[in-house]
């Protein structure tokens, strides 16, 4: 019992004490915590061109390390965040941005899904509106479409009875007409 408790406490302590692991090495970091924070923000949005689905902040690829250092050098030289990002984009294109910019060539990417959902809602709405009008009621303009099918007329009742009668007789004799 005591050992179990000790194990659980140790595990919880380990979990609490652990911090996320970053690829950024201590030697790369800037002394100024504000600049370092900006560098981390910028790096998190820049794609590592070697691994492609990681940001340079997460990647251990050599090129990612060099890009991180470059970002920091430019910040120290007094560049704004946008200027640093623009510089990297000027070398590698929009592909280097993990979040694509909104511009004419990416309208389909950004707004396409919204349009498709709207189109889907339109189609579903149209289909349901059509279904609400039941075929029988639609033929009879005098009745309210929401009140359901109208009652059978005398003639129809008689035909229904005949049909039921017929099928009963067929089942008994096993004959098909």
């Amino acid at each position, binding site marked *: 019992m005591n050992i179990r408790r000790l194990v659980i406490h140790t595990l919880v302590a380990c979990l609490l004490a652990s911090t996320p692991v970053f690829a950024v090495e201590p030697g790369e970091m800037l002394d100024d915590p504000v600049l370092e924070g900006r560098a981390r923000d910028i790096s998190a949005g820049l794609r590592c*061109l070697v691994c492609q689905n990681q940001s340079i902040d997460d990647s251990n690829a050599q090129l990612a390390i060099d890009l991180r*250092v470059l970002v920091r050098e430019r910040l120290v030289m007094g560049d704004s965040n946008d200027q640093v990002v623009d510089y990297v984009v000027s*070398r590698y*294109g929009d*592909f280097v941005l993990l979040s694509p910019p909104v511009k004419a060539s990416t309208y389909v990417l950004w707004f396409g899904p919204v349009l498709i959902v709207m189109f889907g809602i339109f189609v579903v709405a149209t289909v349901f509106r059509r279904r609400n009008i039941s*075929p029988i009621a639609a033929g009879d303009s005098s009745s309210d479409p929401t009140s359901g099918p109208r009652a059978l007329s005398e003639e129809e009742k008689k035909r229904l009875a005949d049909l039921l009668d017929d099928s009963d007789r067929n089942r008994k004799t096993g004959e098909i007409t």
Partner: protein
Amino acid sequence: MTQDSSRLTPEAGRQKPPRRLIFVLPVAIFAILAVYFAVGLTKDPSKLESVLINMPVADFQLLAIKGRANPDRTWGLESADFNGTVSLLNVFGSWCIACQVEHPFLMHVKKISDVPVHGIDWREEDPDAGPNWLKRYGDPYTLIGDDPNSKGAISFGVTGAPETFVVDKQGVIRYKHIGPLDQTVWDDVIYPLVVELRKQ
């Protein structure tokens, strides 16, 4: 009796046009997506279109590698070296296997052509590694810059080695080839482009 059954659904005909659309539309959308993915998913994502085509070579200065220092020059390779003549720039490293595959062809180019081929020796961890590699396999380069921290590579938007650029007389990047150069690429693209650019 059966011929009368149609009487029970007198409005069946009215729904025909939208019904057809419901069947045709998904097929049409599927066809469009299938073509889109057939093209998009078979592309090699590591072969990025360079945004630097038709842009002047960015300002950069790299020191010479060991054993290639020239007392008349401050730098081994710098952006100004690309002005005045059509030239090639090849990014390589002694750690790069594909560069080793490409290397004999660059030696061949040196023999068959008078186009200057400049080199960026990219990210050698040991400053002797590049020079030793060239000593062993031959040195096809006119000028070489040592690029231990990717400054030169980044100014050319390089993502991997080897990459080769064709630069015109005005120092404007005109073509980028990703991967090893070979006779086919040379005959089909590089050499015709060099001839064309020399006329300008």
